[in-house]
Structures are given as structure tokens and as C-alpha cells.
């Protein structure tokens, strides 16, 4: 018992050491932790509320009182960006959670049972994959009529087909391994084999895909909000802020530049973190 525990610990240590060797990945992790803290403590950090309007100071350029200036309604852009972290992060994480969970079930069933079940499921997935995921999301969000909830549904449904495909391939590769055979011999139930034996073995791929999915989710959410199908005013989503600032881009470019930088850095950090995780899970893939 003790030996296995220390073995597990050293495995984790090795993993952690490999991860730390990638400086960009460590930067990614630090930035993610930072932005999560910012999102959690937004009311304490932000100097103003996200919907505190003051028309007398509308469209003031960045100064000591309003670090990132104010928008067309006199709201503080800096505070809105801090609150925006809440919306963007939670949308990114929750859509990925929904889509990954659904895709896990679909991919698991398809990959594990194979044969006709797999054929039927994958042909349906193929049809969905013919529509680019963001276009599918736009179509679904347009049907449901905008707002955060419809954006969540649209983004998760857009992401499910691609991820199911990926998980199915992983499960299929695992199914041919001996430990699955062994589990079948012990008369373990299919459910038990799928989630108790196979799942831990595809966990690394699952985690990496999840991380990258969050980055993609934030990007796509900002796009939906930008075209008016996501967060509705006055909710400060970064993409929605970009969209509101667009009309003033000629004279007040900071309204567009700052939220865009925020989206890019966050997505960049998450991608770097994901890359680092993948390399640490599988050192053979390093540098690819």
C-alpha cells in the first residue's frame, strides 16, 4: 500500500517536473490562476461597478482615475473587463464541461461497442461535422434567440461532434489492450469497464482536450457575443464589449483594443498551459 502510494507520488513529481521545464506553460498556469482570482474577487478589485453609468464622463480616454478610459455610457472599461473575466471564463469552462461530458458518453459508447452502434453514431456525427462548429453554434444561437443560456447550449452543441470523434478514437485504441480483455474475463459490467478501467487511461487526452476546449469556448463565445447572439447588455462579456466599442473605433480605439488583448492573452495562456500538460503527460510528443 505504502509502496504504491509513494510510486504514485513520484509519478506526479515527475509529471510536475516535466511540466515546470516548459516556461510558457508555467506562465500559462500562473496567468490562469491570476485571472480566476480576478474573476472570483471582481467586486473587491474593480474600482467601479460594471454598470455604473456616468454620462458626464462618457468616452474619456485612459487616465489615472479610469485606467482604461470609459465607454459611450461613461462606464469604467477597466472594471467592466474585470467583471467580464467572470462571464468569459465561466462560459468557456461550462460549455466545455457540458460538451466534454456529452462527448465522453457518445464517444465511449461508440468506441466501446463498435460495429453497428459505432457506425450509426459516427455517421450522425459526420453530418454534424459537415457544418463548421462555429457556424452550427451561430445557427443554434440564432434559433434560440441570444442570451447567455442559449449561447451555452449553442457552443456546447457545436463542440460535441468533434470531441466525440476524438474520444471514440481513443477508446477504440484502448479496447484492444489486454487489461480490457482481462476485465471482460472477470465479468465486469460494460459500464464498469468503460468508466473504471478505460476512462483513467484516456484521462490525459481528456484533460488536454478540456483545456484547449476552454480556450476555444472563450474565443467562440466572444464571437457569438460580438455578433449579438451571446451576452446581452449590460453584461460585460469581452466580445460584447468589443462589439459595443466598434462604433467608436475611429476616435476611441482603446474600447476595442483592450478587450481584444484580454481575450487573446487569456486564450494564449490556456493554450500554452494545455501544450505544457500534453508534453508532460506524453514526453514523446514534445516540441510537436
Amino acid at each position: 500500500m505504502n509502496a504504491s502510494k509513494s510510486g504514485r507520488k513520484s509519478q506526479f513529481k515527475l509529471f510536475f517536473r516535466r511540466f515546470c521545464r516548459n516556461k510558457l506553460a508555467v506562465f500559462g498556469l500562473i496567468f490562469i490562476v491570476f485571472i480566476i482570482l480576478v474573476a472570483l474577487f471582481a467586486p473587491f478589485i474593480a474600482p467601479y461597478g460594471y454598470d455604473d453609468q456616468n454620462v458626464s464622463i462618457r468616452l474619456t480616454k485612459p487616465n489615472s482615475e479610469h485606467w482604461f478610459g470609459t465607454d459611450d455610457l461613461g462606464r469604467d472599461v477597466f472594471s467592466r473587463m474585470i467583471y467580464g473575466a467572470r462571464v468569459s471564463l465561466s462560459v468557456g469552462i461550462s460549455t466545455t464541461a457540458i460538451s466534454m461530458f456529452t462527448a465522453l458518453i457518445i464517444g465511449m459508447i461508440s468506441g466501446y461497442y463498435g460495429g453497428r452502434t459505432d457506425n450509426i453514431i459516427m455517421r450522425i456525427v459526420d453530418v454534424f461535422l459537415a457544418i463548421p462548429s462555429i457556424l452550427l453554434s451561430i445557427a443554434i444561437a440564432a434559433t434560440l434567440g441570444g442570451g447567455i443560456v442559449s449561447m451555452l447550449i449553442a457552443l456546447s452543441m457545436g463542440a460535441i461532434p468533434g470531441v466525440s470523434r476524438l474520444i471514440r478514437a481513443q477508446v477504440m485504441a484502448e479496447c484492444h489492450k489486454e487489461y480490457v480483455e482481462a476485465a471482460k474475463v472477470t465479468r465486469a459490467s460494460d459500464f464498469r469497464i468503460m468508466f473504471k478501467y478505460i476512462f483513467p487511461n484516456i484521462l490525459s487526452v481528456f484533460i488536454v482536450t478540456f483545456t484547449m476546449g476552454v480556450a476555444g469556448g472563450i474565443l467562440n463565445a466572444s464571437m457569438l457575443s460580438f455578433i449579438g447572439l451571446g451576452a446581452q447588455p449590460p453584461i460585460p462579456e469581452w466580445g460584447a464589449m468589443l462589439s459595443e466599442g466598434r462604433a467608436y473605433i475611429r476616435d476611441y480605439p482603446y474600447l476595442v483594443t483592450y478587450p481584444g488583448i484580454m481575450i487573446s492573452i487569456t486564450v494564449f495562456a490556456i493554450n500554452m498551459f494545455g501544450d505544457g500538460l500534453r508534453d508532460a503527460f506524453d514526453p514523446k510528443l514534445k516540441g510537436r
Partner: protein
Amino acid sequence: MKKYIIKRLLWMIVVLLGVLFIVFVLLEFTPGDPARQILGVYADEEEVAAKRLELRLDDPFLVRFGRYVYNLVFRFDLGISYRTKLPVMQEIATRFPITIAIGVLGLVVSVAIGLVAGIISAVKQYSWLDKICNVFAVIFHAMPNFWLALELSLIFALYLKWLPPTGYKGLKYLILPVAALGLNGSTAIFRQVRSSMLDVIREDYIRTARAKGQSEIKIILKHELRNALMPVVTMIGNSLGAIIAGSVVVESIFSIPGLGNYMLQAINRRDYPVIQGSVFVLAFMICIFNLLTDIVYSFLDPQLQSQYQSNVKSKKRGVKA
């Protein structure tokens, strides 16, 4: 080979029917009565009822879906726009070429950048060139394409005044949108080219070629690139999908009267037949393109070719026996 292409063509028809079905189901869930939408808020109940009868909206779901498919296939009819009262197909047809131009040009730019940068990066792995390419790739990958488009128009159209900011009166107006989509799309191709080149570079036959004293350029182009291109070709289909989906927003930023912009306006006006038609036509475009890349791939991939040829041969043998 012919068999493979026919198989792919038949499958494409099934996929397109599936796409139509998804889009049709989506429309079913939209709130509001289509007849009321066409006639406007001020029409009285009787008129609406008459319109419903005329459009046969009370038929069962599958019957209406069948009619929709029939109208599309045999009459090229995608319904009538709620707003302009014009046939959707007609409106799409005038906007379609611009979106194709943006999509194809964007793809050309992204493939060109991705290919050149990918080759340089792989051949000179760990050099400063490789590092610069990688840094740009991760930066452009993290940028939302619509934001990149906005910033490009800010710099090149509003500040430097080199290029027109909005509108469409010739190719010059397409430079910025194509640049935004191409730069964004090139990152995925760059990564793929680089990683498959790196795989190939370590192969034995490259060492053999080098031992034979072949020139470095010839090794790169003839031995490495040719073998590394296979995964890249399949990737190009995906890239076009992303570029076309991106063009929906980018067209609206530059006020280009393409299909994407048309669809976005329809979304804001809740003009569902237009949304439905546009999504279908965009998916159709992507399917055709995927089919083309598959065919190109089948010619490039000797394994696939031999698989189908040996199938034919073994069948012939079977007949003789």
C-alpha cells in the same frame, strides 16, 4: 479510383440531406408563426390562416421537410425572405461569389504562409527563425479573427490610410479581410506542416538521399515535403470551414456584401428562411471543397489507391475462378 469517388459523392448527398434536416429542425424550434412573419404584425387572423393554408404549414413535419428538399433539389427554391419578400436563392446567388472569393483567397494566403513558415521552421528547428515563426503562430492562434480584422482596419485603413476601410468595389477591398482570415487560418496549417515535416526528416530515406549527395533543396522539396503534405491536405478542408465561418463576421466588419454579412443581417432581423438557406449553402460549399480535397488526397495516397485497385483486381479474379 472511380469507385472511391462515387462512394464519396453518394456519401456527400447523405451528409447534405442531414445538414438540411438539422437546419430544418432548428427552424421548427424558432418562436413565431411563419405566415404571421411574412404578412407582418398588422395582418388579421383570416389572412394569416389563408397564408398558412397556402404555404401548407399545417402538414406533418416530415411532409414539409420532404417538400422543402423537393423544392430545393428540383426548383432551386429555398423559400422566401420574411423581410424583402424575395426568393432566398436569388439573394444568395448574388452574394455567393464574393464569399467564395474571400474563402478561396483566404485559404491561399493561409496555405502559402503556413507552408513556407512550416518548412522553414522544421528545416531550421530550434533556430531563431523557428522560434519567431512559433511565436507568431501562437499569437495569431489566440487572437479572435474578428478582433484581428478590426485591428488591421484600424492600422491600415484608419491610421495609415493605405487601404479602404469598408465596402466592396474591387479586389483592393478584399485585402484586409483576406489578410485577417488568412493569418488566423495559417497557424493551424503551420503547425501541421512543421510537425509532419519533423516526422519525415528523421526517416531513413532522407538520410539515404543525403548520403547519395543530393542537393539540400531537392531533399526538402522532393523527399520531405512530398511525404509531409499528406496530413496537410486533409487539414486544408478543415481550414476552409474555419475561414468561411470566420468570413461571416469579418464580412460584416468590412461591410462586404457577401453571404456571411447577409446571414448576419438575417440573424439580427430574425429572418429564418434566410438563416436556414445561408447555413445550408455555406455547408454545401464546404462539403464540395472537402470532396475535392478527398479526391486530391486519394491521388496522393498510394495506399488508398492500391487498396481500391487491389479490390478491383481481387474481384476480377473472383469472377474468373
